């Protein structure tokens, strides 16, 4: 049996699955909308991977990442649960070993990762401001009545640049409307917005950091030619920007690689029949101490599967063990692995 490794990246907007072999080569991948329901998205992804699963292979280890990494870790059965910064960096280093900077722009957050000699040296992550992310672009595309897929091509048709002000989506929007009233065409506005997004990304994340090439540009937004061009223009072509073909699934690929690197005896993988199970999330406020934690419970077919949110530790491992759920990841464990 061939050993294969599964990586799952459940983000706020999209969910990605990647299946790799022992040489880190991608065998199969999928890219789906999360649509606000990560469990449904996870099931869809599993179904896709299962239907394209090589006959002579067996899953050896699973890694999850993304903002719903803990949930995905329990549902799929992960051997390693990693933050998205590490996962993206690992994938970028695998794809372009000499990479020195990673730009990752997703739906609701963006990341800048500095890499020196194949090791992450510094990173910045933007989680509260939408001005440098895909949702900014998507929102403005709706206003322009342009499908987001066409946005990049539209920007490429611009004959002149129009500067759209805004370190904030709200100001950018009012300025964009103003520029429309002045009579600028849609291509110029699209180009102006792309440049505004790039400026916002740099201003928010790269202040006082030295950006060196080659830059690997990944995440959903990297599909947008207008943004790639805007980055190119911003650095006056002095910095090489690489958009890998698998730019959309880099996080999931990174999670799969981490699963490969950290794989130990046995796997926690729950099997493909997870798609037939019923998952439910409930929560309650624990008022036993002033922390007033909100405890989130995940149930599988009515049985307790996992608990989150307890600060004092009262609602964690013991309960999981009692119900026979495999202890999917204790943070101290991976800190100790060398």
């Amino acid at each position, binding site marked *: 049996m061939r050993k294969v490794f599964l990586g799952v990246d459940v983000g706020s907007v999209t969910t990605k699955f990647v299946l790799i072999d022992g040489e880190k080569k991608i065998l199969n991948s999928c890219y789906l909308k999360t649509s606000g329901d990560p469990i449904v998205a996870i099931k869809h992804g599993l179904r896709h991977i299962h239907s394209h699963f090589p006959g002579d292979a067996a899953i050896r280890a699973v890694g999850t990442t993304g903002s719903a990494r803990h949930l995905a870790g329990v549902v799929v059965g992960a051997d390693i649960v990693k933050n998205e910064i590490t996962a993206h960096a690992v994938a970028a280093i695998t794809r372009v070993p000499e990479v020195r900077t990673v730009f990752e722009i997703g739906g609701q957050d963006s990341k800048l990762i500095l890499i020196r000699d194949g090791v992450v040296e510094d990173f910045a992550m933007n989680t509260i401001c939408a001005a440098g992310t895909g949702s900014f672009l998507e929102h403005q595309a709706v206003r322009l009545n342009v499908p987001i897929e066409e946005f990049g091509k539209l920007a490429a048709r611009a004959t002149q640049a129009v500067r759209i002000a805004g370190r904030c989506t709200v100001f950018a929007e009012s300025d964009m409307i103003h520029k429309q009233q002045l009579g600028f065409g849609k291509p110029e506005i699209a180009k102006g917005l792309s440049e505004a997004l790039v400026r916002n990304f740099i201003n928010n994340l790269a202040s*006082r950091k030295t950006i060196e090439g080659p830059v690997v540009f990944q995440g959903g937004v990297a599909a947008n030619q207008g943004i790639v061009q805007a980055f190119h223009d911003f650095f006056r072509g002095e910095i090489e920007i690489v958009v890998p073909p698998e730019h959309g699934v880099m996080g999931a690929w990174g999670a799969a690689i981490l699963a490969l690197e950290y794989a130990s005896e046995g796997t926690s993988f729950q099997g493909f029949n997870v798609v037939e199970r019923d998952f439910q999330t409930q929560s309650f406020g624990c008022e036993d101490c002033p922390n007033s934690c909100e405890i989130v419970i995940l149930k599988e077919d009515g049985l307790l599967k996992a608990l989150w949110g307890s600060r004092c530790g009262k609602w964690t491992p013991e309960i999981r063990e009692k119900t026979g759920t495999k202890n999917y990841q204790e943070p101290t464990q991976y800190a100790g692995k060398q």
Partner: protein
Amino acid sequence: MEVLKATFPHLAHLDIALGFLYPTLGVDIVPPPPISKKTIELGVKLAPQNACFPLKVTLGNFLEGIEQGADTVFMVGGVGPCRFGYYGEIQKVILEDMGHRIKFVLLDHPRYGFRRFLDALRSMTGGRFSFIRAKRAAILAWRILRFTEELEGYLRDLRARTWDPQQLETMVTQSLHRLRQVSSPVALDSLCREVRGEISLLPKDNTRDHLRVGIVGEVYVAQERRINFDVERLLGSLGVRVHNSVSTVEYLLHALPFFKSTEKLEAWRLARPYLNRFIGGEGIDSVGSTVRYAHQGYDGVVHLYPFTCMPEVVAKGIMGEVGRDYDLPLLHLAIDEHAGEAGLVTRVEAFVDVLERRRKFGRKKLGVGG
């Protein structure tokens, strides 16, 4: 004379020491309930939006204290380029505007009017008390406060190293609880001895060299775990030994007339090549402590401060220079009521990954130096 029923802001375990001191001074205290979501909501609703987070949380403390029957509020003030000095005044006006008829006692630094300081101090005590008893109580309260910090120190250092962090947490919680019942120096001594003995017997993992991270930042956010998402525990659970350069003991010691905190003076001396003037708040301490952690070979520094905190934002820029010179990774975390736990956890996890990978692949290779 009427007995005051006073409430005060929470700061780490300050309430334990004050709970011991005040009854001796002839004041009834009404400690505010521990900081909770409700405390924060109350404070955020009434405080100016642009005020920094500690003002909002302590305002919430006062409101909850008043709800529980307090008629007096004790607050410390200060003068300097940081807005903290003005908190008390603002909070007083807010409480008055709400129609609360309370006595607001603001203790300012003696440097800015010794007479006023003494007056405030007098009104913070019941008026009638034995000086000798008060002095004894103050010394014991001080020792209690120091012991609470010692206990917190064990937690930071040992969480990652003990095989059973839950047992350690329980031990510390119980000790803090017992500390509330202490009434004499003898009782305190025996409690200290007992707890230290118990903790030294905890089985520890000495087989591996744990990552070490130092915490610097603004005095309130860096210490109040109910505000900073308990970042120390998170680091501990990721296998990191933590040291916190911020301490209420040192802060108060330095504020007392005729005393100086040697820790603070040392940090200021170390900060001098980068910053040689007072920029308000704990700005200079943050820079100096970062230099100290670099000298001590720490793997990284976490910088905690309230969002919009001016001294810390200045310090943040300067700390970048320190980080470059010593090749020391820094993680800056700005906290306010909008801060989300998920984003913070992701950043802390990634930071620990960075430190681990640097150790594994060797930081020297990266070219040390500025």
